């Protein structure tokens, strides 16, 4: 039965769009950050593949054109970053200090956990880029010898955690400036966190969006150094 479904060339793409569409629909209806379209869409795909007995490798091949579009999409992040360049210039010192502090903290947290739990190098580098946007994070994970799929899952969970905890953390540490809030949220929890920052205010949202690309670039540069500490 499943051979008939997977015999053609379009089913993988169609399944991806249908699953993500379902996730986006539930997300819009509930409005809850736990109902993240990527997370729900992925779960839906896994359920369909498991129920129909289709091996993941076949789906991966069927949907390869969807994954192929990631490179041009990631490069395209330069356009929203370019549009926020004035905001960046105006707050340059705070932006750079905040993002670099966030990225170094992120790398230090993962190095600490890998010592504490005796993680292998492959396990540690899988978690190393978990705070940055999925495109850059999965690439960094792959190029350092990690497990990109697991990095992708970690990135989605991280985004949800940042989205849900942002207000609490800012209140706890008396982070009151909208620029500072946005930088913290974007650096720690990429686009999923940014959607909460946008609800907090326009400046918060713009700074958070800017931090996504900047933190991604800085992580891509620093993660290999951090990986050097691992055995």
């Amino acid at each position: 039965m499943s051979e008939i479904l997977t015999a053609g060339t379009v089913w993988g793409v169609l399944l991806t769009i249908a699953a993500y569409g379902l996730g986006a629909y539930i997300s819009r209806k509930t409005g809850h950050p736990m109902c993240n379209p990527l997370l729900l869409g992925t779960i839906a795909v896994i359920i369909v593949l498991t129920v129909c007995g289709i091996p993941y490798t076949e789906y991966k091949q069927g949907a390869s054109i969807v994954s192929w579009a990631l490179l041009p999409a990631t490069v395209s992040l330069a356009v929203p970053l370019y549009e926020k360049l004035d905001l960046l210039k105006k707050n340059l010192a705070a932006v750079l200090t905040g993002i670099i502090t966030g990225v170094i903290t992120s790398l230090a947290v993962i190095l600490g956990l890998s010592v504490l739990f005796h993680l292998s190098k492959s396990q540690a580098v899988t978690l190393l880029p978990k705070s940055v946007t999925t495109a850059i994070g999965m690439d960094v994970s792959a190029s350092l010898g990690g497990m990109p799929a697991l990095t992708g899952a970690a990135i989605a969970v991280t985004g949800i955690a940042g989205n849900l905890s942002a207000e609490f953390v800012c209140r706890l540490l008396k982070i009151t400036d909208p620029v500072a809030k946005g930088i913290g949220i974007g650096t720690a929890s990429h686009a999923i966190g940014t959607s909460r920052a946008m609800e907090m205010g326009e400046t918060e949202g713009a700074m958070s969006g800017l931090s996504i690309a900047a933190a991604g670039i800085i992580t891509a540069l620093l993660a290999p150094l951090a990986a050097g500490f691992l055995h």
Partner: protein
Amino acid sequence: MKYIYQFARILAVCFAGEVLAKILPLPVPASVYGLVLLLVLLCTGVLKKEQVADCAKFLVAVMPMMFVPAVAGVMDLTGEIRAMFIPFVLACIPGTMVILGAGGFAAQKMIDRKRGADHV
């Protein structure tokens, strides 16, 4: 044809990024080289925003969907997840709160200091 040309410009930048990733010894992915290169082209005015913006914004808007096939790969990694479940959860939840706090706190301190300096 407008959109095809926009897409072709973005692909040309991707291609340059792939070439850079191949020839430079840094372990930086092609996507990051491409992103920085496109930003430089826009800032220097070599490319005008209008020459790529429609296509770029569309790609960015649908990007989350593009991760579904790759992340679904976790279905073949259940053993690997079980092996590192606790550090995975600690890194993603409390870890993220620490990173958010550190980045935001550092930025807040810089802003406070600048504001203080402005007043003096």
